[in-house]
């Protein structure tokens, strides 16, 4: 049997820069144009058609960011929030992945626990904040745990779904090779549930940010959530917007991670 298998063949493709990247370049230019138009309109409208006490204006927000950057307010508070997000995400994701993999492999235990998990998952996590303050105080622990609680359920449920949806045929294939339960767990269930786990991680990233900021809004003396609350209390809308800008930058960076994870998830997924 030496004939070449019939199938797809790879050939080189001659394309100009424009053919390769033209569409992407146009999209990016339009995005920048849209952003610039909104900022210019906002700047022009402020004080002319609308009261800038309520809406502030881009020049003031940039000025506020400059001041905060100079006196260090920006960096210390951003650093606090970033730490809360990262620790909360890591803690929740690790616990969710381990619990999801472990519990879903034990069919009976999973069936017993499933409704309880769904009930806990359905509680709005902000409703837990007062309880967490009682338990952990108003320090960083409270925000980390609030973020972790949200992340945990998302990662847990997606990982468990991944484990439970493993193709029976793949498990049988390993059994036929003389594989033990351990082989099945390591060679089939673990890699097969990776898609679920990565999906869970992907959807959980923004929720880590939400959990941390909500914790700060409820009770804190540091962090971007605190900056928002503090500025609003002084009717300093430029300060509120400045903190929101920083939050959206953090969200943008986190979304890049989401994109990277998404590509990893789709690498070997069936084409259809």
């Amino acid at each position, binding site marked *: *049997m030496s004939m*070449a298998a019939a199938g797809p063949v790879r050939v080189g493709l001659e394309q100009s820069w424009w053919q390769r990247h033209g569409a992407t370049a146009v999209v990016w230019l339009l995005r920048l144009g849209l952003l610039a138009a909104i900022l210019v309109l906002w700047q022009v409208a402020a004080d002319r058609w609308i009261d800038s006490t309520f809406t502030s204006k881009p020049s003031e927000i940039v000025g506020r960011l400059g001041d905060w950057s100079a006196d260090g307010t920006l960096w210390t508070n951003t650093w606090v929030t970033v730490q809360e997000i990262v620790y909360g995400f890591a803690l929740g994701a690790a616990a969710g992945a381990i619990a999801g993999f472990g519990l879903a492999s034990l069919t009976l235990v999973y069936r017993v626990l499933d409704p309880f998990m769904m009930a806990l998952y359905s509680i709005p996590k902000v409703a837990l904040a007062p309880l967490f303050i009682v338990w952990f105080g108003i320090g960083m622990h409270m925000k980390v745990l609030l973020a972790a609680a949200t992340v945990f359920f998302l990662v847990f449920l997606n990982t468990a779904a991944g484990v439970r949806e493993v193709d029976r045929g793949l498990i049988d*294939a390993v059994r036929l090779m003389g594989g033990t339960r351990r082989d099945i767990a390591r060679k089939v269930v673990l890699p097969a549930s990776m898609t679920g786990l990565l999906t869970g991680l992907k959807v959980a990233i923004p929720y880590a940010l939400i959990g941390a900021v909500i914790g700060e809004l409820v009770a804190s003396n540091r962090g971007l959530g605190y900056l928002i609350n503090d500025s609003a209390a002084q009717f300093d809308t430029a300060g509120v917007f400045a903190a929101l800008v920083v939050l959206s930058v953090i969200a943008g960076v986190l979304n890049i991670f989401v994109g990277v994870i998404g590509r990893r998830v789709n690498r070997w997924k069936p084409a259809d």
Partner: protein
Amino acid sequence: MNGSVPSRGDHARSGRRVLAANAVTKQFAKDGAAIVALDQLTVSIAEGSFVTVLGRSGCGKSTLLNLLAGLVPPTTGEIHYRDRVLTGPDTGIGYLTQTDTLMPWRDVRRNIELPLEIRGLPAARRREIARDLVERVGLGGFEKHYPRELSGGMRRRASLARMLAGSPETLLMDEPFGALDAQLRTELQQDLLALWQGTGQTVVFVTHDIDEALLLGDRVVVLGPLGRILLDREIGLARPRSADALRTDPAFVALHRELSAALRQGR
């Protein structure tokens, strides 16, 4: 042609029993009722023979193979493999299922290495065996491709290579080429025969295609509803067989008519 006795068939007749179903019944429970898939089936497979099991959809062919593979236990009756009762999968038995069960997250080479990994072979030895098999099944140059990047025929080749990597003595195949186009099927049938010839491996090959059953088998077992055996006979066609030459062979035409009649009778 009719008088010549092919050496392969001769060997099959003289071979001792390697795999056997002894009055097996298989029922599946569904909504409080039992669905009977096989009823009191008894069949025995001789060592080194190529047995094709022919039957219409839903006659219990796949159930029979699942039982012979040890994947599912029979409701009553026993499966014998060599000198013992089969209670679970055995590494001596390879099973090529109807659908692909390649691990989608492993490329071709690592899929083929999987049975060797489970057996605990060192990496260098695994790679050596996999490289050899990739060439033998005609997948040279596609070692690094993931299953989704392969055509249906190439996935079948990879599955075949993976099964052979476990070096089983008995091969079970469940309509392995059923989903492929006619040209590709003929090609893979020839390749399978070339791979099998001279290895001494026992093959049980399930199909619903009369031509395929005759082209490949030393013996054909025709199954009717509930796994009733409608016909069980030796195929005395000389090897090597070619699909094109067979079509005009009077012996083949007569056998084809006989099997076709048997299938109709079972309706």
